[in-house]
């Protein structure tokens, strides 16, 4: 008896599309994915739409408009398993910088016709609106982690997605610490692993794209970054990058106001 393939849907909210592109970027594994699941709704890949409910929904993007706040509830209602992918969906993304200023000021400063803009005052993660079964971090997400989450979900096991620090990833792959050996600023000790230590292998410090680690001691790191020459303003900007609205980074940036 042929069992029905699970139905997969990919949803976009406020985002740049980079994370859902990670699914298309699974070139070698794409056919295996298409064999393992029925791609029922994925507008970036196909205009064909299969009606819900869906077994697995991948949700990209943050919630920034009243329409999105409503739509995410409909997505949740149609999804057995809802997995958020990327910094926008899990933390609010770079656009959460708008949370720091009055919305009207920003809209007037940016748009010629502010009256056309219908936006919430904040950009928030999906988890603030509906129940989420798994959060996959990253800006963008790592395609191997995405495959691992899909494979684990399809096979009924817990995904191997570590919540430990970027430093562990550097040490596992033999990357020399850029902070200790070159005095470069790095958010690695307070950032979750997962990117494949991209920046340190290019002689750059970590920018925190994967969001705060499970137990982020930003205070101790900030003290060290200051000793390495960062001033208050640089430090604040450092925490206000792609995952600025993640609580640990938001709080760290606020202490350097």
């Amino acid at each position, binding site marked *: 008896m042929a069992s029905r393939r699970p139905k997969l849907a990919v949803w976009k909210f406020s985002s740049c599309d980079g994370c859902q592109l990670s699914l298309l970027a699974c070139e070698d*594994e794409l056919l*295996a*994915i298409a*064999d*393992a699941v029925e791609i029922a709704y994925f507008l970036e890949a196909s205009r064909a739409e299969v009606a819900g409910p869906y077994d697995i929904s991948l949700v990209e993007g943050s919630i920034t408009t009243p329409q999105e706040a409503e739509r995410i509830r409909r997505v949740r209602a149609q999804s057995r398993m809802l997995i958020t992918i990327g910094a926008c969906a899990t933390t609010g993304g770079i656009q959460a910088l708008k949370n720091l200023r009055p919305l009207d000021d920003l809209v007037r400063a940016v748009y010629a016709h502010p009256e056309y803009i219908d936006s919430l005052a904040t950009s928030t993660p999906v988890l603030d609106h509906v129940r989420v079964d798994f959060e996959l971090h990253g800006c963008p997400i790592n395609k191997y982690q995405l*495959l*691992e989450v*899909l*494979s*684990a979900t*399809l*096979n009924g*096991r817990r995904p*191997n997605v*570590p*919540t*430990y*620090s970027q*430093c*562990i990833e550097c*040490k*596992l*792959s*033999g990357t*020399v*610490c850029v*902070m*200790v*050996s*070159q*005095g470069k600023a*790095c958010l*690695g*000790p*307070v950032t979750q692993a997962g990117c494949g230590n991209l920046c340190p292998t290019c*002689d750059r410090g970590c920018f925190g794209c994967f969001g705060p*680690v*499970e*137990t982020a*001691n930003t*205070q*101790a*790191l900030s*003290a*060290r970054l200051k000793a390495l020459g960062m001033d208050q303003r640089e430090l604040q900007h450092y925490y206000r990058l792609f995952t600025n609205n993640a609580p640990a980074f938001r709080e760290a940036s606020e202490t350097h106001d």
Partner: protein
Amino acid sequence: MPDTLLISTEALQGLLDALIAKGYQPVGPRLERGAIVYETLSAASDLPRGYLDEQGGGHYRLSKADPSSPETAGIFRYAVGPQSWKGFLFPSRQSLWRARRTETGFAFEPETDDAPAYAFLGARPCELAAMRIQDRVFQEGPYVDRGYAERRARAFVVAVNCTRAGGTCFCASMGTGPRAEDGFDLCLTELLDADDHAFLVEIGSASGRALMELVRHRTATPEEIERGRRAITDAAEQMGRRMPPDAAAILASNPEHPRWDQVAQRCLSCANCTLVCPTCFCSRVEDTTSLDGVEAARHRQWDSCFTLDFSYIHGGPVRRETAARYRHWITHKLSTWHAQFGTSGCTGCGRCITWCPVGIDITEEVAAIQATERAEPLGDE
């Protein structure tokens, strides 16, 4: 052949050629992006020359020696870098087995270890001590790690005595250096002054002796042996740090000391100390599956007691607070390791101090607890 020989610096290439002729893959110090790392050596010219290191808490820099000083020709004048031989004997990530679904169940395929027979060139005395400590962990208890035991048995060790201490070294106080007493096939001491550059070679095993048959050498004179001894003594005297001799007892009797909360304010819980430590041996095991569920695999990778997952049991992690995790690590390393394996788990290499991004110093933490253990008795709370 006498037990102590002398070879020229040019003969280092002969030593490498002999190792390769005997079927070993030489691995040793190389310069990579501002640090000394251990990688495959194809020629003696791969060895960094004229580099000196500067190490401190959370600080590592390499610099070129002054061209007018004899140091400019030195080959082993830096102390240990971020990596250790642990990465070769106990790889950071290993496949344990693979399995494939069959009509009736699963077919298992054990992994075969295709690691070459390594020749470790440049293992420092503290690193030989680390290998002996990991031997106890991996192959001298009731359960032998077969892969480790095989890689260890195949390896050839060319040790190098330290003639200059690094800024975070404290091996002299741990009794593990700066002179290697045993645990090597050959042991070099670099003799370096204005008009002479050569290496003393001590023979440590029959295979070491056999190898030296292939390398151009002569007998070392008593004066040369004495020069080597003095250079090693200099290194011992340069060490600015020491571990209190009764560290094990100090930690065992202070599980509730206020210092734990103080160090937790600074500790990032990032795990760097455990991963650069040449004796930390913890690992996690992960199972993966293919998308269609037909293939499965099990991997082992380095883990650290600084992660929350490490102590996760039903209901959550046991050591939630950083203070508890730091206390667990240092107390195991310096105190309960004795009960478990009969030695300290620390070799005094100083890596955990240098490569801690915020420079937490294991010797300073023990000293701080020692200094206040009676002065500030705890209340009843």
